[in-house]
């Protein structure tokens, strides 16, 4: 399984962070600007308590107001300056966050377009989606805001220490004694708090799936009368959640007051030691006040520093998940020579593309799925002249799509070759092949958008008229007309607003528009009303004419008209021939088709 979570490491691993440098490099200038602004910001923050010191020492102690105007002007100048740095800094951080995220997502998305089906078969969509959206967001947020914040914290702490040493080094040393204590404390607690928070998140997903089951399975729960039992189990999970959350809260409730306590302890020390110095005349009152401000102010950045550091460690898992997706090797790739001649999908060299006829030949083909245990095809030979209709039949899950996967080059043979128009298809680009294939799935996939856009997916430069003509050819125009905005109606996410039958008709139209030499159809098994079924039948007949086609067939009429039937059982082709020949053999095909036929016909009588 790919989706196993990695163990969380306990220390900063620079080699992991290096992997994201390429995404930050284009924003070097912004980064420098932000760091600079940050430094300026911390300088201002360090200066602020000095105003108070000045107010005490120069005005109150001396009992005069002269120079107050200049003091006010200087203060205003500083805060306006600070305002500017905050604006630049915030915008810079946002820019880094957003643009790095945008580029990372794009890199992932582009890479996903190249990954092989063996990856998709083994990895749930939700998992991939979470890499692209959540992990990336977490990484860029951390870098743009927290890591930069950390720089602020470091420069602030260093600056304050310098300022304090400069003002009075003895008092400064007193405060500095407390710094390591806070750092250690924070480090200790942050790691534990993070662990518990992770635990809480885990339990939270259990709660969500508890609701999911209870609500999705309501009918089953009721008829089995297991309401109380399920509730008992759910209640145990919420109890687990309660105690874990309280534990996490307790850590927090100890940690925060302790940090605050150290701040006050520093104040007390300043008061005692500093007070003596004031009495001895070695320190003026204003400086003492500034020291109390620093003593309280320095601890929050230290606290944040340690907090961010432990977050960085936990974010390494996010980075690893993202980079490992980027490092995933596509299994079907075009060779450099092929790419040179035919181009990639950004720059197809269409002028070099040969026209296709549609002859397909399997030559000593052996095949084993990358995650499979045994060969599903061994030394398989088959010549399919252009225009042949091949039907593939077998039970659900028997492995009917293997041949289709091979022909479409979603997978490549482990041994042997597949020839298209007499040449190994690996000598041409994937895009060349795919541009010549029409594909209609059992549960046809539409994209959210209008009917028009979905059909046009087959040929992007088709005019509205051509789209409509394609729709008419397979009676998909009736689907469009039934909708209130005709061809401009939205089909909903994944085509949810339409029935399976309607979706199939639209995907037929899409395939017609592509006008492919090779056509692949996975017939729908789910019940479709009689009228739509007839329309689909007619559309199929029309599409098949003159094309090399592969049909994963469920309807008898389709099977009967096929030029060649391949019968699949447990992943292997066990019989092949024409309908009547196969029936006469009274073998597996006979059994299979008989059952299917009986079910189909009975349904028709009762309808």
């Amino acid at each position, binding site marked *: 399984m790919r989706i196993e979570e990695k163990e969380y490491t306990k220390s900063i691993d620079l080699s992991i962070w290096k992997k994201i440098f390429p995404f930050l490099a284009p924003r070097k200038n912004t980064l420098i600007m932000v760091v600079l602004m940050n430094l300026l910001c911390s300088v201002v923050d360090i200066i602020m308590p000095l105003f108070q010191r000045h*107010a005490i020492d120069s*005005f*109150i*102690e001396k009992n005069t107001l002269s120079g*107050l105007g200049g003091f*006010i002007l200087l203060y*205003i100048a500083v805060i306006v300056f600070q305002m500017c740095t905050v604006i630049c800094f*915030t915008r810079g951080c*946002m820019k880094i*966050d957003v643009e790095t995220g945008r580029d990372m997502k*794009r890199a992932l*998305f*582009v890479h996903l*377009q190249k990954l092989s089906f063996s990856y*998709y078969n083994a990895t749930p969509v939700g998992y991939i*989606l979470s890499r692209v*959206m959540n992990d990336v967001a977490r990484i860029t947020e951390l870098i743009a805001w927290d890591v930069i914040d950390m720089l602020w914290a470091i420069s602030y702490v260093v600056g304050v220490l310098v300022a304090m040493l400069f003002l009075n080094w003895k008092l400064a040393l007193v405060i500095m004694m407390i710094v390591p204590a806070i750092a250690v404390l924070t480090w200790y607690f942050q790691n534990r708090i993070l662990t518990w928070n992770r635990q809480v998140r885990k339990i939270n997903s259990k709660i969500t*799936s508890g609701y*999911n089951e209870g609500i999705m*399975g309501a009918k089953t729960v009721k*008829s*089995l*009368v297991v309401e109380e039992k399920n*509730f008992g189990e759910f*209640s145990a999970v*919420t109890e687990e959640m*309660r105690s874990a959350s*309280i534990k996490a809260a307790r850590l927090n*409730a*100890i940690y925060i*007051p302790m940090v*605050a306590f150290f701040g*006050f*302890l520093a*104040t*007390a*020390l300043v*008061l*005692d030691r500093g007070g003596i110095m*004031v*009495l001895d005349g070695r320190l003026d009152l204003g400086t*003492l006040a500034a020291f*109390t401000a620093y003593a309280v102010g320095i601890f929050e950045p230290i606290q944040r520093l340690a907090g961010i550091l432990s977050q960085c460690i936990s974010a390494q898992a996010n980075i690893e998940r993202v980079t490992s997706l980027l490092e995933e090797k596509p299994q079907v790739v075009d060779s450099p020579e092929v790419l040179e001649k035919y181009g990639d999908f950004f720059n197809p060299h269409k002028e070099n593309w040969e026209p296709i006829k549609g002859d397909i030949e399997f030559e000593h083909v052996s095949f084993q799925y990358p995650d499979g245990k045994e060969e599903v095809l061994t030394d398989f030979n088959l010549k399919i002249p252009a225009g042949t209709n091949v039907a593939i039949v077998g039970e659900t*899950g028997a492995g009917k799509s293997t041949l289709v996967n091979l022909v479409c080059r979603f997978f490549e043979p482990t041994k042997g070759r597949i020839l298209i128009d007499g040449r190994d298809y690996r000598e041409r680009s994937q895009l060349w092949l*795919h541009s010549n294939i029409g594909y209609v*799935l059992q549960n046809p*996939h539409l*994209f959210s958008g209008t009917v028009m856009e979905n059909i046009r*997916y*087959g040929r*992007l430069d088709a005019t509205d008229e051509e789209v409509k003509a394609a729709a008419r050819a397979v009676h998909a125009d009736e689907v469009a007309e039934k909708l209130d905005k005709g061809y401009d109606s939205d089909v909903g996410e*994944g085509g949810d607003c339409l029935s399976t039958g309607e979706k199939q008709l639209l995907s037929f139209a899409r395939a017609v528009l592509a006008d492919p030499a090779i056509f692949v159809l996975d017939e729908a098994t789910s019940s479709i009303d009689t009228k739509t079924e007839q329309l689909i039948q007619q559309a199929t007949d029309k599409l098949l004419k003159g094309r090399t086609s592969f049909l994963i067939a469920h309807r008898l009429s389709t099977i*009967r008209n096929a030029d060649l039937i391949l019968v699949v059982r447990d992943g292997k082709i066990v019989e092949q021939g024409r309908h*009547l020949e196969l029936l006469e053999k009274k073998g597996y095909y006979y059994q299979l088709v008989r*059952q299917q036929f009986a*079910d189909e*016909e009975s*349904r*028709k*009588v009762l309808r």
Partner: protein
Amino acid sequence: MKSKRKTDKFRIIFRFLKGNIRFLVGTLVFSVLFTACNALIPQIVKYTADHILVLDGIPDGLNVRQALLLAAILVVAAAVLSGIFNYLSKMCLAKGSENFLKSIRDTLYHHTQYLPFSWHVQHQTGEIIQRCTSDVEVIRNFVCRQLPEVFRICFLIILYLGIMFSMNVPITLAAAAFFPVIIGYSAFFHSRIGKRFQDADEAEGALSSTVQENLTGVRVVRAFGREKYEIDRFDQKNNAYSDLWVYLGKLMSVFWASGDLITNLQVLMVMVLGVVFAVEGRITLGEFIAFLSYNASLTWPVRSLGRIISDMSKAGVSMERVAYILEAEEEDATDANNKPALTGDICFRNVSFAYSLDHPILKNINFTIPAGSTFAILGTTGSGKSTMVHLLNRLYDLPEGCGSITIGGTDIRDIDRQYLRQNIGMVLQEPFLFSRTIRENIGITKEQLLDEEIRHAAEIACVDESILHFTDGYDTIVGERGVTLSGGQKQRVAIARMLMKQAPVLVFDDSLSAVDTETDNKIRKELKKEMEKATVIMISHRITSLMQADCIIVMDKGEIQQMGTHDQLIQQEGPYKDIYEIQMNSDIRLMEGGAVCE
């Protein structure tokens, strides 16, 4: 009308706070004490500056150094107390809010389990789950974070302003005059920017579903060679999303920076006034320092108050959404004590039923199923067969005047609902398995899981062998986080699960449709042996599954078209005979190739 709904939605909060009042009170009391302790510290500093350091008013019997040490010790003591109170208030809050949360979650879960099936059918699963999770989270934030925080901040403002007033009225008035401006500005900004955040959320949703569509449609994308087109589409969404955030960043940068500016101006004003007053001798130096420190402690809480207030307005919607679920009525418990033996004849008398008025599903159905017999129903989707089953185990209740269903002479509406369901074993066509082990799934109705019993049930359902093929055998986890079973395997596991109930009435609602004919026969034979006395209702479209039944009915469009034994029915002209012939002679027709209605 509107005011009534308002009280309702707040009532749910009070309902769940019950029993947690002590934690609530504790949170408030301790946070008041915590704030008060914090307020003491600047007072000590002030005293030190005004009295100890100018050698005026040192407590009797102490020298200066001892007095300073005492001040320092007092600060530490106040800090320790403040820490303890802070800890206590945080813990009270954590306990109270986690109890509160647990009781909302449990109640929602329990309640949804007992809501009528019709309610579940009318509402979308995703929507309900969202209410039970995200909306509950919003309510929790409101009750457990925002409310106590607002309380604490308000108390803080009152206390600190009070102290400041006691020191000097004009400066305090000037300082306080800024607060409404800061709160108002922040609340205004957050409510205005809320719309932008929504836009950004929507753009993120759009981006996310573009990726998801691409991933689920990966075959179509590849087969049409549309990678570049997809990347362009993605870029468009990705850029739109990024641009929105960059724009938001600009707005926020201005807001934060101007917020800083206003706050700093306020600090400046307090400082300048303080200087002027101190120079004029109207306040002491210690008061000046204390003033600045109280003022500084107020700025952040005041700034966050505006944001919290604008966030709190979102909670009302969530409360309504959760209250909507809680206000739905649970299945009524009919006469909890009426639990007759359900071994008698099952009788449908003049049963008519419709989910909605204009669309009748069952029209005047009459039949009797003698106890211990096998009753078969032949029909397809929409014929009303599943509705009959829903009525039989009271997933829907037959309304008054629509006929009656009786078992052993007792109207089922008078039988305890849970008891009735316990005694009717039902297997659905697309059974739902829980995401736990196969063993737990089969034994879900039992308190104790005996291996022998479970394997025995699995053997009867002809699924034992398939289960042993899995690496983890009976401990294989199925469902969303485990192994995916084929349709036939699921059906058979569901049959084994049902067998564990040992119910006197068994219903198979097309539940062998994904199993091949041979296994189908085997399972039925085993069942008959095992459950000799049970009354069996078998719904199917396979003649071989039905032909041995004691009575067969053919359903069509909510009516009984034919009724009789297999032998009687094949003598009559009608759909049963037609289907029988198709299924028995299908090989001949296959050869001829003529029977397909095209």
